[in-house]
C-alpha cells in the first residue's frame, strides 16, 4: 500500500523557539531543544521523532519566522 512519508528542514538559527510548530504537528515530530540554544539564545525546534513526519506542512503554516522546508514522498 502506498504510504506518505515526510521530512522537514528547520532553519535553527532563525528559529525563535516559540513552540507553535511543536503544538501544531499532528504526529509529535517536533520538540524544542531543552538545553541547547542558537546564536540568538533561543531553544530552537528540532525533529525529535523524524520517522513520524507525514509532510503535512502544519508546522510551516504556523511558523511566524518561516523556518521550515517540507518534503514529501509516496512510497510503496
Amino acid at each position, binding site marked *: 500500500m502506498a504510504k506518505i512519508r515526510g521530512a522537514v528542514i528547520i532553519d535553527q538559527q532563525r528559529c525563535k523557539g516559540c513552540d507553535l510548530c511543536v503544538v501544531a504537528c499532528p504526529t509529535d515530530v517536533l520538540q524544542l531543544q531543552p538545553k541547547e540554544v542558537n546564536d540568538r539564545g*533561543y531553544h530552537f525546534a528540532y525533529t525529535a521523532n523524524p520517522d513520524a513526519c507525514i509532510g503535512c506542512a502544519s508546522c510551516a503554516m*504556523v511558523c511566524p519566522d518561516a523556518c*521550515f522546508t517540507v518534503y514529501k*514522498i509516496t512510497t510503496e
Partner: protein
Amino acid sequence: MTSEDIIKNGSVVYSRPRLLNERNTHYCPGCSHGVVHRILAELLDEMGLEDKAIGVAPVGCAVFAYNYIDVDWIEAAHGRAPAVATAANRLNPENVVFTYQGDGDLAAIGTAETIHAANRGENIVMIFINNAIYGMTGGQMAPTTLLGQKTATSPYGRRADINGFPIKMSDILAQLDGTCYVTRQAVHTPAAVRKAKKALRTAFENAIAKRGTSVVEFVSTCNSGWKLSPAKANEWMAANMFEKYPLGDLKSI
C-alpha cells in the same frame, strides 16, 4: 527510508517564501505579525505582484514591515496609512496598494483615515492586525481591548463605565458603501492560516479589479503584551476574542 532520502528524492511541499528578506524579524517569538507577513509574502509572489505591490507600513510593531517583504513600501505617520495609500493608488492606478495596520493605528489614532478611505471606496487592501493591545509601546489598552482584559493601562481589567466598549471596526467598515469585501480571519492553526491566505487573495483580486476597499482583519495575539506563552495566547484568543470578533466574511460583493 531516512529523512535524508526523503529530502533527496521527495518533492518540496513548502519552502520559505522568496519575497521574505533574509533578515530576521524583530517580532517576539510566536507573534501573529510574523505569520501574516509570511502568507502575505507568499501571496504577493503567487499573484505576480512583486513589482506592482506598494505596501504602506504603520506605526506599531509592524513599523519595520518594509524591511521584511521585498516589495515597494511607504512608511506612514501613525494612523495615516489609508490616506497615504489613497494618494499612492490614485497617482499609480496600475499598482496594487495595501496598508498593514494594528488596532492602535487603524482603530484609534487613524480612525478617521480608515473610515473615510473605506467610505470613498479607495481601491486598496487594508490588512488589520487586531491584537487588542498596543504591542509596540508596552501593552497599553486599545479601543479593541476586551471588557475585563488586563493591560498596562487597565491593570484591573477594562471597564465599560470608564473605558467604553471594544470597537468592532470591521462591522463599522462593512456598513460603508465603499467597501466591497470585509472579512475576519486568524492565523492560530494550520487550517485558519490556509483560509486566511485565501481571504487575502480575494482582497488583492478586488484591488486589482478596482471593486472598492477590501478589509482583512486578523484577530491576532500579542503574547508579550498579554503576558502569555505564544501557544497559550492562541488558546486565550480562541476562547475570548472570537466571541467578540467572530471569524468569517462580514461582507462580500
